[in-house]
């Protein structure tokens, strides 16, 4: 065995060796080609052809053979040629024949080839198109995906229409993978044919609505490339994108974050305090007294952050912990550009962490930190030591670290930094040493306390052995002396002494300038230096010559007795210099200082011109103005505007309409949705704040009676608005069932929520157009998402209005209007429910197969299973409609009253979503509200009973401000029993025992099946699995719509389409054990009906029967 194996192995080694040899040969030939290329810069096509003629003939034969293995071998070699950048285009006909090969590897290699050469051989490439078109219809999603990938990569203009069609089709594909591919294809098509833009935008718009995390990143990428200015497409998807972000793949996260940064800058108002626009002093004060400042801010500023703005900040924060450095950087820049100033600090640690990464990462991160540290020292000061330079760092890293250290220097840490700098000055890397000297100079000018110390240190460096160090020191000292107009003649003298040994021209020039400028302070030395210069003048560099002329002129003016002749001599030398610059200067100086008849006028002012006090140079960071570019971008890195750079707009003075984003539903995924309580708040604030006009505009269309209600709503929301809202919405939900359809009421309510639906025009589709708010829900429904938060947020407004109205404003409002309003409240939820079902049906038609499995994909789960499910259903679209989850009105229950909860109140409702955490759990959304006057901390779930109870807790809420409320979601495994789940809701100080008792209907989830399946399943569940009763229904409930509504309201089941009018069927499964629950209702005469429930769980059946009976009996 061993022997056999080793022989096998040696064979393999032999094979590899031959392969290597041939590879080497190839390389050799490549080499010759390269040199040819170098010689004749333009490489012609013929030469590579010739060199490879023999090899390629050979390949052609292999490709045309019948054996897959030979073909494969040939393709591998062809790909090898491509990889080396060699021309293999003449093999095109031979290769393209293999595009339909069954061998997957061969196929892939052909794809590689095709993508590379199709552009050059367009006619032949067309031969392959039909193969891809066929593959686009393949039942396997991967084959569909890769076909689209290759098809869209073939850059042949003729196939643009085919691509367009394929993209459109793929965008509606069931598989998120294919949809992702179509998003990629959009960009490819756009770059090939920008004329398709409009059509492509339509596809993008459609894909933006996609709930799959797989698609999100790619479609945003397409958006950024095709239509980055169409910000209006984002509105409706904004919240969804924010919520999905954590689950999107890393690369998509980067793209989405940068897009959202741009978006936020156009949609929200600035969270930065006015007047504190990155003022250095203010900044320092801020860090000295952190808490004080905060108080200040809250007091002084009426600014309240848009909850959507907050949503973005909160959802991006966890990504700071990503392993992907690009993600961390993009979150950091988001915080930098969007967060209130005191919150930006949270990114510091993560950025410093990135410094441990690869050299290139360090480079980019340090550049960004350098820009940040100019404006906000405090952010990085605690991490100063992380920027200490190591001798092993690359030079550009060292320089950047130095830059940052200099930016961070202040009175407190300057001594530490200077000590560090001392080490650097001695570095063997002289470029770095020179940079350090400049840094010392900057520290000296910025911090006056250390100027003298630095100056002395620099003077010491003048005796350094290294020339560059000395030269740099001279230049820096020159600058420093200029900023310090006090006596420094000693230093100047010292420099004069060194003058002979310094050869670097810039340094010599600097010394000469200093001599001239301060010649009166060194009256003896300056003429001597000039004398020396006169001797060496001709051998000097231009810059030194210029300064010599300057020095001569200045000395002539101050000390003409000693230097008159010298000056004349130098001016004569300069007159015949080779450089015209120097000749010009000499001529100019001569006219200026030497008086003669012609030039009397200026002569008088010569002294004032030459010896004018000069402003000191400002030593600034090279990163001073880099912040004009968005951090983390290529433009920032290069400090020039890169092609395709999109400016970050300034904050708008007045926030654009916030309600444009309202349409979108909040994912149940989020654990803290600020929705119910919070969305309202800023709105109500608006009423009082100064941007009244905007509001005015919105209201202008609404009726007069609404005015009073809106004002009252503002008053109501001022005192813990959220609570009253919920109560009222709960109430209204309950009453919804018995209230009849009152059209006048619905009209009324529609007018009330006018601002919200302004943007919604598509409601024209809905048959029941009367009630506008329902149109607002169409989006949510087609995506199969819960109306939960939505319903409460929009209905809450109107309902709370009316309630408070009746209490507070009773004098202004007549009794009649109150009555009317009450009715509005009652009628509204009802209308919603009904048309909800319809709208979703409509949209389904509109959307064709795709949304079938939408309820699943929204949970991000795009598992193969669900795909297959979708696939099998795709051809029976007529029955599919039943799969839309049924959403009855949401009943909210109280979990904890604020009296017993010491200010903490909790309400819950069953969101009827598949639970994210475990499929066997029932998703419950809990709305926590703080009605006390102090903030509550560390709200979490404590002990539970029974101990075995499986709960997925929400994350601890660190802090809940007074009046604020959060929505969190949790999962509870009830194990298909209605036994209450008892647990403790804890705050930092207290614990409250609470319990959730589910109605039996909530333990179900809707199931999809056809009528045939239903009958089949029902047939299996007979006998003791069947429970039935004859019930009497309220007359209002006899219509099929009403029945569906009542049943769906009581139980979370799915409607099964029925062929018979008097037969209604509903199907569901229990959440934990997945047992089928079938409900059928057969209408008999005079509002009686036979209600039958078939399920294995007989206890549940009887309970459900009771509940349904009750629900249908009441009107």
């Amino acid at each position: 065995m061993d022997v056999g194996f080793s022989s096998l192995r040696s064979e393999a080694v032999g094979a590899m060796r031959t392969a290597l040899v041939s590879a080497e040969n190839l390389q050799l030939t490549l080499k010759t080609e390269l040199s040819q290329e170098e010689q004749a810069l333009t490489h012609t096509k013929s030469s590579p052809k010739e060199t490879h003629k023999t090899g390629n003939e050979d390949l052609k034969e292999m490709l045309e053979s019948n054996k897959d293995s030979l073909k494969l071998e040939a393709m591998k070699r062809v790909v090898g040629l491509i990889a080396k950048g060699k021309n293999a285009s003449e093999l095109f006909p031979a290769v393209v024949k293999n595009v339909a090969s069954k061998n997957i590897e061969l196929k892939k290699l052909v794809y590689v080839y095709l993508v590379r050469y199709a552009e050059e051989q367009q006619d032949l490439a067309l031969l392959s198109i039909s193969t891809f078109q066929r593959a686009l219809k393949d039942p396997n999603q991967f084959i569909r995906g890769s076909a689209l990938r290759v098809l869209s990569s073939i850059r042949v203009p003729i196939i643009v229409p085919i691509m367009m069609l394929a993209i459109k089709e793929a965008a509606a594909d069931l598989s998120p993978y294919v949809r992702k591919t179509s998003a990629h294809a959009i960009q490819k098509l756009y770059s090939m044919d920008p004329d398709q833009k409009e059509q492509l935008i339509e596809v993008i718009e459609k894909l933006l609505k996609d709930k799959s995390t797989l698609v999100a990143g790619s479609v945003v990428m397409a958006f950024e490339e095709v239509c980055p200015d169409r910000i209006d497409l984002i509105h409706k998807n904004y919240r969804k994108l924010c919520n999905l972000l954590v689950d999107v793949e890393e690369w998509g996260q980067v793209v989405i974050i940068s897009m959202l940064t741009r978006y936020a800058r156009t949609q929200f108002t600035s969270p930065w305090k006015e007047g504190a626009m990155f003022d250095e002093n203010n900044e320092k004060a801020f860090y000295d007294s952190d808490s004080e400042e905060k108080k200040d801010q809250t007091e002084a500023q009426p600014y309240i952050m848009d909850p959507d703005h907050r949503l973005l900040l909160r959802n991006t924060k966890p990504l700071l912990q990503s392993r992907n450095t690009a993600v961390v950087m993009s979150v950091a820049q988001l915080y930098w550009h969007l967060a209130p100033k005191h919150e930006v600090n949270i990114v510091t640690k993560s950025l410093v962490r990135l410094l441990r990464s690869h050299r290139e990462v360090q480079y980019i991160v340090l550049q960004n930190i350098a820009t940040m540290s100019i404006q906000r020292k405090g952010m990085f000061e605690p991490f100063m030591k992380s920027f200490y330079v190591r001798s092993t760092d690359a030079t550009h890293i060292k320089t950047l670290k130095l830059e940052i250290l200099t930016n961070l220097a202040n009175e407190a840490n300057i001594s530490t930094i200077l000590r560090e700098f001392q080490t650097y000055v001695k570095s063997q890397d002289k470029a770095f040493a020179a940079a350090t000297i400049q840094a010392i100079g900057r520290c000296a000018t910025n911090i006056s306390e250390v100027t003298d110390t630095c100056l002395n240190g620099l003077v010491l460096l003048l005796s350094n052995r290294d020339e560059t160090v000395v030269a740099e020191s001279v230049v820096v000292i020159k600058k420093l002396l200029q900023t310090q107009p006090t006596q420094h003649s000693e230093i100047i003298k010292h420099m004069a002494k060194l003058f002979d040994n310094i050869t670097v021209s810039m340094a010599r020039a600097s010394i000469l300038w200093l001599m001239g400028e301060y010649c009166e302070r060194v009256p003896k030395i300056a003429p001597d230096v000039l004398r020396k210069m006169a001797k060496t003048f001709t051998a000097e560099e231009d810059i030194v010559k210029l300064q010599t002329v300057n020095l001569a002129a200045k000395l002539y003016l101050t000390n003409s007795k000693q230097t008159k002749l010298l000056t004349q001599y130098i001016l004569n030398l300069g007159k015949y210099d080779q450089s015209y610059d120097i000749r010009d200067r000499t001529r100019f100086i001569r006219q200026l200082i030497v008086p003669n008849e012609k030039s009397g006028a200026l002569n008088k002012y010569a002294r004032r011109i030459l010896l004018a006090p000069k402003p000191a140079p400002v030593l600034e960071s090279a990163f001073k103005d880099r912040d004009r570019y968005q951090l983390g971008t290529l433009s920032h890195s290069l400090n020039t505007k890169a092609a395709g750079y999109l400016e970050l707009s300034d904050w708008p003075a007045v926030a654009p309409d916030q309600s444009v984003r309202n349409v979108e539903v909040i994912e149940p995924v989020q654990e803290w949705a600020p929705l119910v309580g919070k969305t309202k708040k800023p709105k109500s604030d608006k009423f009082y704040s100064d941007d009244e006009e905007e509001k005015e505009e919105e209201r202008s269309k609404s009726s007069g009676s609404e005015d009073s209600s809106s004002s009252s709503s503002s008053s109501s929301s001022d005192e813990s608005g959220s609570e009253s809202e919920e109560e009222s919405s709960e109430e209204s939900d309950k009453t919804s069932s018995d209230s009849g359809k009152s059209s006048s009421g619905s009209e009324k309510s529609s007018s009330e929520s006018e601002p919200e639906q302004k943007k919604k025009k598509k409601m024209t589709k809905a048959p029941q157009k009367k009630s506008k708010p329902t149109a607002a829900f169409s989006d949510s429904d087609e995506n199969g998402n819960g109306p939960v938060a939505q319903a409460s947020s929009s209905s809450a407004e109107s309902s709370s209005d009316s309630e408070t109205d009746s209490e507070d404003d009773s004098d202004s409002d007549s009794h009649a209007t109150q009555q009317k309003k009450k009715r509005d409240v009652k009628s509204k939820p009802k209308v919603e429910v009904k048309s909800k079902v319809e709208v979703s049906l409509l949209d389904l038609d509109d959307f064709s197969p795709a949304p079938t499995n939408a309820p699943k994909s929204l949970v991000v789960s795009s598992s193969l299973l669900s795909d297959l499910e979708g696939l099998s259903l795709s051809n029976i679209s007529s029955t599919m409609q039943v799969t839309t989850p049924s959403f009855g009105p949401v009943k909210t229950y109280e979990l904890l009253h604020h009296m017993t909860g010491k200010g903490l109140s909790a309400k819950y409702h069953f969101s009827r979503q598949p639970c994210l955490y475990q499929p066997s759990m029932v998703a419950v959304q809990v709305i926590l509200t703080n009605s006390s006057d102090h903030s509550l901390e560390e709200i979490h779930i404590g002990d539970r009973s029974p101990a075995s109870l499986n709960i997925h807790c929400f994350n601890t809420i660190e802090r809940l401000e007074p009046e604020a409320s959060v929505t969190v979601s949790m999962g509870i495994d009830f194990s298909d029993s209605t036994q209450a789940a008892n647990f403790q809701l804890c705050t930092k100080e207290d614990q409250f025992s609470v319990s959730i008792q589910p109605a039996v209907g909530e333990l179900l989830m809707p199931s999809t099946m056809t009528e045939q399946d239903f009958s089949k399943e029902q047939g299996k569940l007979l006998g003791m699995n069947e429970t039935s009763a004859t019930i009497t229904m309220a007359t209002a409930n006899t219509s099929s719509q009403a029945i569906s509504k009542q049943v769906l309201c009581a139980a979370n089941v799915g409607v099964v389409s029925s062929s018979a009018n008097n037969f209604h069927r509903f199907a569901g499964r229990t959440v934990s054990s997945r047992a089928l629950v079938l409900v059928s209702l057969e209408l008999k005469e005079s509002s009686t009906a036979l209600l039958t429930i078939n399920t294995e769980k007989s206890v549940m059946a009887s309970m459900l029967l009771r509940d349904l009976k009750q629900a249908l009996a009441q009107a």
Partner: protein
Amino acid sequence: MILQQQISVELNMRNSPSDPPCQSALFKGGHQNITFHQHVNPSQFIVWELLQDGPICRRLFSNSGNFWHTGTISCNIPELAAEMIHSLFLINHSGDIFLEKHWKSVISRSVCDYFFEAKEKAVDPENVSPVLQTPHHYLITIYRDKLFFLSVIQTEVPPLFVIEFLHRVADTIQDYFGECSESVIMDNVVTVYELLEEMLDNGFPLATESNVLKEMIRPPTILRSVVNTLTGGSNVGDTLPTGQLSNIPWRRAGVKYTNNEAYFDVIEEIDAILDKSGSTVFAEIQGVIEACVRLTGMPDLTLSFMNPRLLDDVSFHPCVRFKRWESERVLSFIPPDGNFTLMNYHVSSQNLVAIPVYVKQSITFFEMGPCGRLDITIGPKQTMGKTVEALMVTIHMPKAVLSANLTPTQGNYTYDLATKVLVWDIGKLNPQKLPNLRGSLSLQAGAPKPEDNPSLNIDLKIQQVAISGLKVSRLDMYGEKYKPFKGVKYLTKAGKFQVRT
């Protein structure tokens, strides 16, 4: 043909709406440099030059009397949508391009000349700026394992995005073939090419998870390559990857092992700068947990620590549930199959960092005569009762040092004349008999005495201890029935540990 097509796009444009459309077009030159003239008005015309490596160069010639003046004009060419990463070139240490991959139209390799120019200037490959600008493109380069990965970019893109991706490419190659070198890449050029094809679609990263990639393209093993040569089989997986579609894209489906095992290595690195006197200028601990998990099915693991408060800043593999960490300080995750980095962490800086060794050194260069003296002793300081192993000292000597004549009491030393690097490999540190290296250095005659003493870089390892004191308390598995074999190993290493002299 391509070029003509591009031109026809350009022809539709005018410099401003008021300009007359192009009146005449003149094609000139071969297929690489195409020039055509566009008459704007009788006294002006524009020459469009289509360069080989760039889109277009425009010159405005205007006729004023006797002269044709040349000037460049800026007109708003609609931004042709460009992908994030256009092309990738792999370049070896000596500057040969040995692999190129274009995700879109082909960019001539002459674009790399700008890079070579910068490389020439920088002398040391480490010093080449990672981001370069050329007239028509931007080049973003990483340098790893003596190879340059050069990507060509055409439009604004976060540079870290590209850098991170390039490192992922290098990681993947490393993961597949054990190392990332020119010879390995050339031996497996087809596989590498297939990988690149899968990793990026139209310049946007597609599949970068190693688990997903390995399902699509199997890494070569000796056995398989033998079988493939005999049977004509392929490296391309015939099953389609499911990971990419699931909620957990990092894990492949249907994993099966007979021995179920999960190993975790807690590796900590001490980054420190010590000054001349031996006091700590700066010290911190960076840790990483490397995992090797071979478990059947879909295990859901929970790893908890005895003292999670130690961890100051963390970053996770995407599999880790961040919310659990936030609330309970435990790592809860469904692991990828095989080797991966679970988390990186930074130990809070309040904790004093134990420095395991001390160094007594004296390096002096004499003013008189071309020589210097070196004397280094290393002893244990805070080693947590463990032995320090694999101790090594590296010194980058000043250029003037010609040779070294030294005697170590333990281990051996080498001095590389070309790079001027002195390496003293000590091995185990014996507390009874401290290792010492002393002797003389000879300097280049006539060269000035080096200004500065070189700093020492120290490498060391301490087995079975995490220097921060971090301890894993338990590992639980849910979701699967079998009992896995679990193991945790600790290791402390010197990171960037530098002693200034």
